[in-house]
């Protein structure tokens, strides 16, 4: 059974067909890279998978379960997590609070209006563990507004990992990072155990190609090439799209 199976997915904004017909099957534990030129519909595909956008047609299965009609927030509870290309974190809060909010989202405690959030030992412990995984434990109590861009990217990933997802969608995790920061994030992604299936959108070919086992090339809302690293790189269509030959 596939971890994530997308078939016949379509989405239009007015007359613009952003997702024409996407079919995608990702195996459990796989590392899948999605590439494609700007406007190919990569982020839209992620938003369709997480339910932030509603597709016009098609089906999305998570470990065999049809989720196309499941509301976005329920999909998080089914083991689907994502990070964002444009960082959307809680600026006024500390790093620990950010990660704790991620944990709280899946906990029944989120409806509790009586206890003190800042004293929830289980959430604090799990939040600190998630920050430790991305190497930010020593900054746990710092407000997010006092951190660098690269650190925020890692907080994004920590929030995704904290939810212990079965499928993690990473939207350009390397965007805007320095060479050293890229290396850090690369190491961090490599350390994620294979019980987490990862689908990643990335422009940086060097780091991304190294990470992915299989690659999907998206162009004008359609899958044009799919295969192993070597196959995709050698494929004439890839060259056509990227080099304009």
């Amino acid at each position, binding site marked *: 059974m596939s971890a994530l199976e997308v078939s016949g997915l379509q989405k239009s904004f007015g007359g613009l067909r952003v997702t024409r017909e996407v079919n995608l099957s990702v195996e459990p534990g796989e590392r899948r890279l999605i590439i494609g030129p700007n406007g190919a519909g990569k982020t839209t595909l992620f938003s369709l998978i997480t339910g932030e956008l509603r597709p016009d047609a098609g089906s999305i299965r998570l470990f065999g379960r049809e989720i196309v009609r499941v509301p976005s927030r329920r999909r*998080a509870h089914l083991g689907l997590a994502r990070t964002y290309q444009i960082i*959307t974190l809680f600026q*006024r809060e500390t790093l620990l609070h950010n990660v704790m909010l991620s944990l709280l989202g*899946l906990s029944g405690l*989120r409806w509790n*209006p009586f206890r003190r959030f800042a004293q929830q030992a289980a959430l604090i412990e799990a939040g600190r563990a998630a920050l430790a995984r991305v190497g930010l434990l020593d900054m746990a109590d710092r407000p997010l507004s006092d951190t660098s861009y690269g650190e925020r990217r890692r907080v994004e990933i920590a929030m995704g990992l904290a939810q212990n997802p079965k499928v993690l969608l990473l939207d350009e995790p390397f965007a805007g990072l320095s060479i050293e920061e890229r290396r850090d994030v690369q190491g961090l992604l490599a350390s994620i155990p294979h019980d987490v299936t990862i689908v990643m959108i990335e422009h940086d070919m060097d780091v991304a190609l190294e990470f992915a086992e299989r690659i999907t090339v998206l162009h004008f809302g359609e899958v044009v090439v799919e295969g192993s690293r070597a196959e995709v790189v050698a494929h004439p269509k890839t060259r056509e799209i990227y080099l304009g030959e």
Partner: protein
Amino acid sequence: MRRLAALGSLLLALGLLASLPAWIGNSYYVNIASQVLLYAVFALGLNVIVGYAGLVSLGHAGLFGIAAYSGAILITAGYGHFVAIAGALVVTLGVAALFAVLALRGTGLGFVMITVALGQIVWGVAYRWISLTNGDNGVSITSRPAPFGLSLVDANPFYWATLVVFLVAVAAIAIFVASPFGASLRGTRDQPRRMNALGYNVWLIRFLAFLFSGLWSGVAGLLFLYYNQFVSPQTVALTASAEVLLMVISGGTATLLGPIAGALLVVIMKNVASGYIERWNFVLGAIFVAIVIFMPEGLVPGSLRLWRWATRRRRQHPAGPAAMAPVPHGSINGGAQ
């Protein structure tokens, strides 16, 4: 040490509030203090939705007034105070639920406009449904309740009763804001899309917060009814909604002390300054302009910022960098943020 200081100032404030009738002079000022407290409860309730949910409501006087009218109508119909209070709060919660369902179809300006419209509908009903609300003449009641046999007819006992309700409101809202649900609510204010993707039901969180906000607006409306023993369409007018919103904004949104400071400012200007200056509205307007220019975040956070800045400067100069320890944080606003 810091906790001890916070506890000390809390006890001092409680002592001052409880003994207010003894040191403030005469019952005129005691009554004004009661007004400050009841409007503070109203502003604290509104702040739940404005400050912590980030949804600006200009219709909350409708909820405040619904409670006052329901209570007044039940009492004139011959029901006891207990039934009137319980009934009024149930009606207010029902109307708040309806308001929330309609207003939460939008956020930002859309939310504001829907709340304005809903508030105006309540005003229209109060003004025109004469058989129910007595129209422009309003509804009068002739008695105040006597909880545990204590009569609230005089200014002092009424003040103490209002103080008890106010303290319960402050405690309830402080606990609410610091709770996991409060953290969820603030999350939906800052990053609603993100919260949804993290598994939160953003709509339901906002809906429940609106009910909680409406509940305290209703409690304040009942205090208002018993204070004036009268309610009229003026109570539910748009200007009343704007006034309480100004209390929240001028005092400081999303803080516990801000709405209280705002209520203090507005009520004192309305009652005390109007005795000396005929154009007190003009003075109040000038004060609001000054707040917006010099403390756009509101009186309480603005004063805290100034105080922190001043103490940091004082500490830096004599002792150098070693004395740059962070200024106590959160102790003054009760850790509301």
